[in-house]
């Protein structure tokens, strides 16, 4: 029989075990669902508190390094501790003075039964006490003999923990330690796995990247990589680069097989290639053999490759099996080298050409030097220089350098038409562009000049303009036998030579021009000299040097002011101010400095000349005008005396004229009285006593009467003429119509007698005149027209008029006997008669009166006539609108 108490005790113990088991099972389950140390601790602590009732349980982790630190992993309980006793917080182990770290680390449980005994000066413990905790159990968490943390259980009253509770806490601590270690291990493993995966991925991608890089390097590097099978003489591998470099597809190149090198390598390189592979046969491992040769690109271009090869594998007998090689396209480098060589050669030739041109004595020699050297730089059949003369529309072959015979030689001239250069082509040349014909043979409709060259076998023909400034002066031509356009390098060279040639030709022209002007300068009798604005003489022609009695070496001492009178200072400043405005000065007269009482004069012209960087120099030309001045003065003097003499003479003449007129007036007047007596009494006798005279007496008496009548008319006309000289004339507007009417009225008897036809216009104009003079003019002219008519026909007289500018021309046109040309002037002189008085009565004074009258009116009179047909007398007078000229 069991003691019931004992049994009860046992039963209670059993039930506690059962509960303990169930809680622990539950704990195990919860632990299985946890994934982290925190979750593990969280799963453990509440379940522990179900087995060991306590206000608080917690798990701290310990770090034994340096200062021992504990960090709170998880807490479960009703009481709240102040910091640093909360979750996630750290605290040095020394904050718990009752806990001996060293023994705890060895795995010994730490128990404090009354915190109060240690709380003095310990804030952490005081905080615990305030929370109502008086005792503490700390069980170390041991993993692999190492204390990693502690499971802490608090009690709300002082006193020891029961053994059972201690056992439970021990068990749970052991479990927790294992689980935590597992959890940590798991986490660690997962971390490792992740790390591993990450590293693998990284490595993989790095490798992939590396691979890509390598491939790209292989594909993009100028170096072609390949393997070459020596025995088979074929390429067994090649990087993509090689086909691309040669313009083939990869498989196309592969297909060549052993024929690759013989087919694609330059023939000149075959032997060196053979030599190279001979050397490769005996190459040591690691030795690098090099060679350069050319491959032909599919576009026909030759590409240079630099080859480096090394032994890659050997056959069992040790002979070289495969070569590993790199090939680099060095065409550009080769080209550059070639270009460099070309440039050097070009420089040398151009330099030689310059030397030759400098020494050349004529444009022909210059051009010849240019084409000769040009052909050294550009191999071709012919090179020529054609000069273009746009005024004459002619081209001249200035020079030609030709291989073999040619029909176009220097000196040949032909019209532009023979070149048949279109205006467009000409304009392009003018703009500096070249003109190139790829093949003359295929050129339809080739101009004659090119036909000659074509016949001589020239195929490709290049023309490069020769430009002087903007002016096209000629072309430089190149012709070659092959059909191949000239390369850009050749174009460059020709243009360079053309430019140099143009400059040389221009320089030659300038040189010639300079010589010409120098000659003028040297020979000029005028004094030509160059000064600065201050008047210092910088240069002077021989004439000036002679004048100044200076040698060239003394020039710098001379100033213009030394050679001219004082006024030169003023003249010089005038010249300088004009020069500064860019104007020239012409014909300034300056007196020369007086030397030994001789006076000299100079006429100075000057023009600005910018030289030596905008410094003003003045070109002066002084001409000795001393002699001219003397002659001028002489002339002035002569002129003055002449005028005086003319005035004197005029006065003399006027007075002579006056006395002559007075004389002729009084003569005719005084003659009139005796004449009247002679005439009068003769008539009286004739009237009254005629019948008392014998017939002879009668006849003589009639002679007296007739002569008297003629003398009377003569006297009348003479008087009228002499009166004109004394008449004071005032011009005023006069109706010509009225004058003409009066004249016709006066002549009416004669008109009737001669049965004349007079045609006078109604619209005769007004003229500036004097009625008396106008009457005399027209009565004489009309009278003459009635008098000098042909025997067998009645006179027809027409008056016409016309306006000419401010004058009026009145013409009297008759159908009379006319006047021989030689008398056109003479008939207007006094007493000039063409006919005897018997035939045509007249005094020979009428037309003289007309002429004098017309002249007094400021007009003129003239005659046009044809013998036997009639005469036209024309009188030009000022129209009435015109202010009188006299």
């Amino acid at each position, binding site marked *: 029989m069991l003691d019931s108490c004992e049994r009860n005790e046992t039963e209670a113990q059993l039930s506690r075990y059962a509960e303990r088991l169930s809680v622990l099972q539950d704990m195990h389950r919860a632990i299985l669902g946890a994934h982290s140390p925190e979750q593990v601790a969280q799963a453990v602590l509440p379940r522990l508190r179900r087995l060991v009732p306590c206000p608080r349980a917690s798990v701290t982790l310990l770090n034994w390094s340096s200062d021992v630190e504990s960090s709170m992993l998880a807490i479960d309980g009703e009481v709240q501790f102040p910091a640093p006793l909360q979750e996630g917080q750290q605290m040095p182990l020394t904050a718990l003075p009752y806990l001996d770290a060293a023994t705890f680390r060895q795995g010994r449980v730490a128990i404090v039964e009354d915190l109060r005994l240690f709380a003095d000066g310990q804030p952490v413990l005081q905080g615990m006490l305030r929370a109502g905790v008086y005792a503490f159990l700390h069980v170390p968490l041991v993993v692999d003999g190492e204390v990693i943390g502690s499971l802490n259980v608090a009690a709300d009253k002082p006193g020891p923990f029961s053994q059972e509770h201690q056992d439970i806490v021990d068990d749970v601590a052991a479990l927790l330690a294992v689980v935590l270690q597992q959890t940590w291990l798991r986490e660690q493993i997962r971390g490792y796995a992740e790390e591993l995966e990450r590293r693998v991925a990284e490595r993989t991608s790095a490798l992939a990247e590396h691979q890509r890089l390598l491939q790209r390097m292989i594909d993009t590097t100028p170096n072609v990589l390949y393997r070459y099978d020596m025995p088979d003489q074929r390429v067994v591998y090649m990087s993509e680069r090689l086909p691309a470099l040669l313009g083939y597809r990869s498989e196309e190149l592969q297909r060549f097989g052993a024929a690759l090198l013989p087919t694609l390598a330059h023939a000149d390189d075959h032997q060196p290639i053979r030599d190279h592979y001979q050397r490769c046969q005996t190459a040591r491992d690691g030795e690098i053999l090099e060679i350069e040769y050319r491959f032909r690109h599919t576009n026909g271009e030759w590409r240079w490759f630099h080859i480096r090869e090394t032994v890659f594998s050997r056959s069992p007998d040790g002979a070289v099996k495969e070569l590993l090689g790199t090939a680099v396209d060095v065409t550009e480098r080769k080209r550059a080298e070639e270009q460099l060589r070309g440039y050097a050669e070009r420089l040398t030739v151009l330099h030689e050409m310059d030397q030759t041109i400098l020494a050349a004595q004529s444009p022909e020699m210059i051009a010849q030097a240019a084409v000769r050297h040009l052909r050294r730089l550009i191999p071709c059949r012919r090179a020529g220089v054609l000069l273009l003369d746009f005024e004459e529309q002619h081209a001249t072959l200035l020079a030609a350098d030709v291989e073999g015979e040619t029909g176009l030689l220097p000196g040949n001239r032909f019209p532009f038409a023979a070149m048949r250069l279109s205006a467009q082509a000409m304009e392009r040349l003018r703009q500096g562009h070249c003109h190139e014909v790829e093949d003359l043979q295929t050129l339809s409709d080739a101009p004659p000049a090119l036909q000659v060259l074509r016949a001589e076998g020239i195929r490709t023909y290049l023309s490069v303009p020769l430009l002087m400034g903007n002016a096209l002066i000629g072309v430089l031509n190149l012709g070659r036998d092959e059909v191949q356009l000239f390369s850009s390098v050749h174009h460059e060279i020709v243009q360079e030579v053309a430019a140099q040639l143009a400059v040389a030709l221009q320089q030659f022209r300038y040189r010639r021009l300079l010589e010409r002007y120098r000659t003028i300068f040297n020979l000029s009798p005028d004094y030509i000299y160059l000064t600065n604005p201050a008047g210092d003489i910088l240069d002077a022609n021989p004439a000036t040097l002679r004048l100044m009695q200076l040698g060239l070496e003394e020039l710098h001492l001379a100033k213009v002011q030394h050679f001219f009178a004082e006024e030169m200072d003023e003249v010089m400043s005038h010249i300088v101010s004009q020069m500064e405005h860019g104007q020239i000065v012409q014909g300034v007269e300056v007196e020369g400095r007086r030397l030994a009482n001789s006076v000299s004069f100079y006429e100075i012209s000057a023009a600005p000349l910018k030289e030596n960087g905008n410094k003003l120099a003045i070109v002066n030309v002084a001409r000795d005008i001393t002699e001219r001045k003397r002659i001028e003065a002489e002339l002035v003097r002569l002129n003055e005396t002449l005028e005086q003499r003319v005035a004197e003479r005029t006065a003399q003449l006027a007075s002579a004229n006056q006395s002559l007129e007075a004389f002729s007036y009084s003569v005719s007047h005084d003659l*009139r009285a005796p004449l*009247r007596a002679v*005439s009068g*009494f003769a008539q009286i006798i004739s009237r009254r006593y005629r019948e008392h005279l014998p017939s002879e007496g009668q006849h003589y008496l009639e002679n007296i009467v007739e002569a008297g009548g003629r003398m009377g008319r003569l006297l009348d006309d003479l008087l009228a003429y002499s009166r004109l000289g004394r008449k004071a004339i005032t011009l005023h507007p006069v109706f010509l119509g009225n004058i003409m009417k009066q004249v016709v009225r006066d002549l009416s008897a004669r008109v009737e007698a001669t049965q004349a036809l007079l045609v006078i216009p109604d619209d005769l104009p007004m003229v500036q005149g004097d009625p008396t003079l106008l009457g005399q003019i027209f009565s004489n002219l009309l009278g003459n027209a009635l008098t000098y008519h042909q025997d067998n026909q009645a006179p027809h007289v027409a008056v016409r008029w016309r306006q000419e500018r401010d004058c009026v021309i009145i013409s009297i046109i008759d159908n009379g006997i006319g006047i021989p040309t030689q008398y056109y002037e003479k008939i207007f002189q006094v007493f000039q008669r063409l006919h005897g008085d018997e035939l045509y009565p007249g005094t020979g004074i009428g037309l003289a009166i007309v002429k004098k009258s017309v002249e007094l009116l400021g007009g003129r009179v003239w005659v046009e006539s044809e013998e036997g047909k009639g005469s036209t007398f024309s009188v030009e007078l000022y129209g009435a609108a015109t202010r009188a000229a006299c």
Partner: protein
Amino acid sequence: MADPALILLVEDNRMDVELTLDAFREARLANAIHVVTSGQEALDYLFGVGKFADRQTYPLPSLVLLDLKMPGIDGFEVLRRLKCEPGLKRLPVIILTSSKEEGDLALGYDLGANSYLVKPVSFEGFLDVVKQVGNYWLTLNAEPPE
């Protein structure tokens, strides 16, 4: 007008006088013509001076035919004096001269000549002039009042 009017002919040229008188006769003009042969004599006559003081014998003429060109006192002078004299200034004076000078003409008219006749060279012309003068001045023309 019972008696034909008296004409005073002032003319220094004897032959012109004769021609004039002949022409008057030829023209059958019955006028009495008194001839003076110089300017001075003409003035003496007209002003009744000296031997011409007796107006009975030398009455004032109805018309003066005056030559211009005369030695000494010429026709213009005679005319000028005449026209200044109130008793004589209305006396018709005809200048009868060889001169066709404009100046002479102008001066003659300016001095108060009543007419200006140019002596023609021919006798027929002279005759014509005389006839016209007779007709016009001695017949048609009304004499100025005394």
